[in-house]
């Protein structure tokens, strides 16, 4: 099979999103020898460096190893040439989001800073339309988010939206999985379902993260953000379900516009606050290591920045509006609620095209790798 003609657009993309020192690599393979996550058979990331130098984008977007990498940057720190293999792997992942994007134009918009205003415009317009802005007139008084934005439309929007997003993401993911299967012509040793279950259990434990040497703090940081995010999403869902439930069992007593707020010791509230705090602490851990120890944290890219700020924005505004509600400041509370929703919408619905998409791609890559028994080297 002939190699692909070197993909210049791919090489430009790699250079623009963190892999600008790629050409310094002289294939010494120190990176593959120090990586603790690589399998022993055809280890990464050296071969990815070579394939990237030659612009072999077709192979790289279908390479599970690109996603088995957890960006610990042991390789970047030890690379004698400063070619930053860890950052190159990250750049390949950024390229993959755009490559697999359906529809393609959304992938392009998410990948460029110039696209950000257009992307933000969509949720801004939607929520400007949906909200009752007259509620903002009261500066101090009773805060009731239902008055600003009703449950029903909100729930419909997110459920429909999530469904559409998952559908669009699945197009890319199926192409991705097929691509991996075609390029690694190895018969799977275990079936997809079994591999998926094992992978999900491994992700829940965050065991693989702890293998890396240089960025051990990442295991804790990601654990906090990961569980914080799911906890916050669960909180939102549970809070809405509580409202619907109370209204359902006592419609006269509990009008939807008149559901009492939860006390801080309410289990859902505790979950929400713990989750928000976990997200904030986790993001701060990631961001401060970023600036204190640049090489081991990897280079900062536009895609990385908007992802980190997106999560931080969601968590921060979420916590803030709680305090604004308790403090009885409707104008500010509703304003930040609006901002919060814009952040949440952007994070969730652009997920397949942004770095948030790693939750899909890395999971699928790990499932595939597990199915062909491509596991990290024994220590």
């Amino acid at each position: 099979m002939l190699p692909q003609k070197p993909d210049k657009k791919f090489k430009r993309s790699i250079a623009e999103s963190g892999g600008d020192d790629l050409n310094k690599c002289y294939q010494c393979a120190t990176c593959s020898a120090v990586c603790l996550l690589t399998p022993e058979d055809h280890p990464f990331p050296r071969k990815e460096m070579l394939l990237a130098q030659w612009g072999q984008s077709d192979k790289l977007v279908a390479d599970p190893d690109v996603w088995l990498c957890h960006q610990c940057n042991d390789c970047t720190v030890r690379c004698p040439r400063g070619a930053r293999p860890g950052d190159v792997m990250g750049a390949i992942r950024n390229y993959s989001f755009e490559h697999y994007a359906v529809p393609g134009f959304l992938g392009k918009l998410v990948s460029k800073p110039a696209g950000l205003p257009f992307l933000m415009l969509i949720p801004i317009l939607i929520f400007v339309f949906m909200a009752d802005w007259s509620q903002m007139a009261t500066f101090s008084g009773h805060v009731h988010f239902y008055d600003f934005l009703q449950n029903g439309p909100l729930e419909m929007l997110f459920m429909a939206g999530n469904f559409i997003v998952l559908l669009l993401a699945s197009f890319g993911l199926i192409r991705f999985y097929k691509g991996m299967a075609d390029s690694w012509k190895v018969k799977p040793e275990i079936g997809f379902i079994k591999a998926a279950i094992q992978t999900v259990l491994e992700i829940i434990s965050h065991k693989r993260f702890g293998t890396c040497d240089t960025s051990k703090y990442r295991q804790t940081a990601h654990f906090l953000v990961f569980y914080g995010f799911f906890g916050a999403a669960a909180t939102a869902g549970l809070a809405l379900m509580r409202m619907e439930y109370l209204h359902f069992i006592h419609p006269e007593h509990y009008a939807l516009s008149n559901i009492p707020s939860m006390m801080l010791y309410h289990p859902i509230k505790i979950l929400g606050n713990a989750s928000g705090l976990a997200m904030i602490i986790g993001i701060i851990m990631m961001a401060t290591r970023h600036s204190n120890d640049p090489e081991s944290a990897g280079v900062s890219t536009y895609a990385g920045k908007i992802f980190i700020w997106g999560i931080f924005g969601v968590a921060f505004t979420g916590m803030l509006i709680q305090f604004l509600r308790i403090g009885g400041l409707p104008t500010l509370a509703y304003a930040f609620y609006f901002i919060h929703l814009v952040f949440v919408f952007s994070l969730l619905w652009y997920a397949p095209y942004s770095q948030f998409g790693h939750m899909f791609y890395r999971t699928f890559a790990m499932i595939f790798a597990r199915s062909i028994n491509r596991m990290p080297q024994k220590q």
Partner: protein
Amino acid sequence: MKTDLLVVGGGIAGITAAVEAAEVGKDVILIEREHYLGGRVVQLHRYFPKICPPTCGLEINFRRIRQNPKITVLTGAEATKIDGKSGAYTADVNVEPRYVTEACTNCGDCAEACEIEVDDNYNFGLTKAKAIRLANDNPYPNRYFIDSAAVNDPKMKALVDICPPKAIDLDMKAETVSIEAKSVIYTTGWEPYDASKLEGLNYGVLPNVVTNMMFERMTAIAVNNEAKVVRPSDGASVSKIAFVQCAGSRDRSHLPYCSAICCMASLKQTRYIRDQYPDAEIHVFFIDARTPGRWEDFYQNVQDDTKTIIHRGKVAKVDDAGDGNVTVIAENTLTGNLEKITVEMAVLATGMVPSAKTTKPLLDSKQDEFGFIWPGGVIAAGVATGPKDVAGSNQDATAAVARAMQDMVEV
């Protein structure tokens, strides 16, 4: 003292410069910091590409020095001040005492009786040395000396009477010699890079991880005693050994440059092993095998050895495998597999750091960020100007003499 040429550094480049200048009628003073001439070459067991013993090349040069009245050699000598310009330099040279006079006949009674031992830097800490000793197996000057670290030891006094020609003088003092020279050449050579700085390779932690220069001394000492080279921890004979190339070389965190000769040096060392252990399994790990010119032939011969396995991949980790053994870890980029090979000993091919980096030349010099001396300032030759082999050092020294002659000619 007045002279035409002052050569600073008595390794092979300095010796060559001195001899070349003297044999066209110039007066030369050759100063050397140690108590012996020969620098790094005399520390080698053999040198490539013809696997010559250092005595072969050095002996002829020592004879030329000895027979030429125009060459003055000062050992234990280090310049403390050099001023002036082309055609008129003045230098102050501090000459450390040997504590042994010219009456010495090399009988060796003193060393036999000596109980005091000192750190042996000549053998990179592999052995301890007697406080009074010959510098090496082919010393020039061929006379005993006392290590300054031990000269004040009370047991030293007893040795004065043991010496038959009464050549031991513990009251010798350092002298300052003033030299006027028309030209100066720096041939200060190199030091091995400190391997303990190499993360992941466990040098200094695991006893059977040694450097290329240490392995050179181990082999030289063994063969001199008509024995085979063995590994440091337990003296076990060698049946499986790994050579780790580019240990700290071509590396932005250590020596960013290539030291040019370590590939050949390690390939040469595989021949040492093969000579002594016909069945030993030898592994060599390269990023690139740098064997230009006629060295390619040498590399071909090593490749033809069926029990020498060449791996294209740099060893990034050396782990403890128990029982003194070590596991070297590298990706073989040709087969695409991660290799973890357990061997009895690993030899790290560490690079050359110019001595001029730590001890800056006393005249204005153009040095790059690694310490190598470039044209434009003081005249230099040998590894002081860049990594090279023996032949290259000699050619460089001859060229430097031609350049120095321009300073000696009155215009």
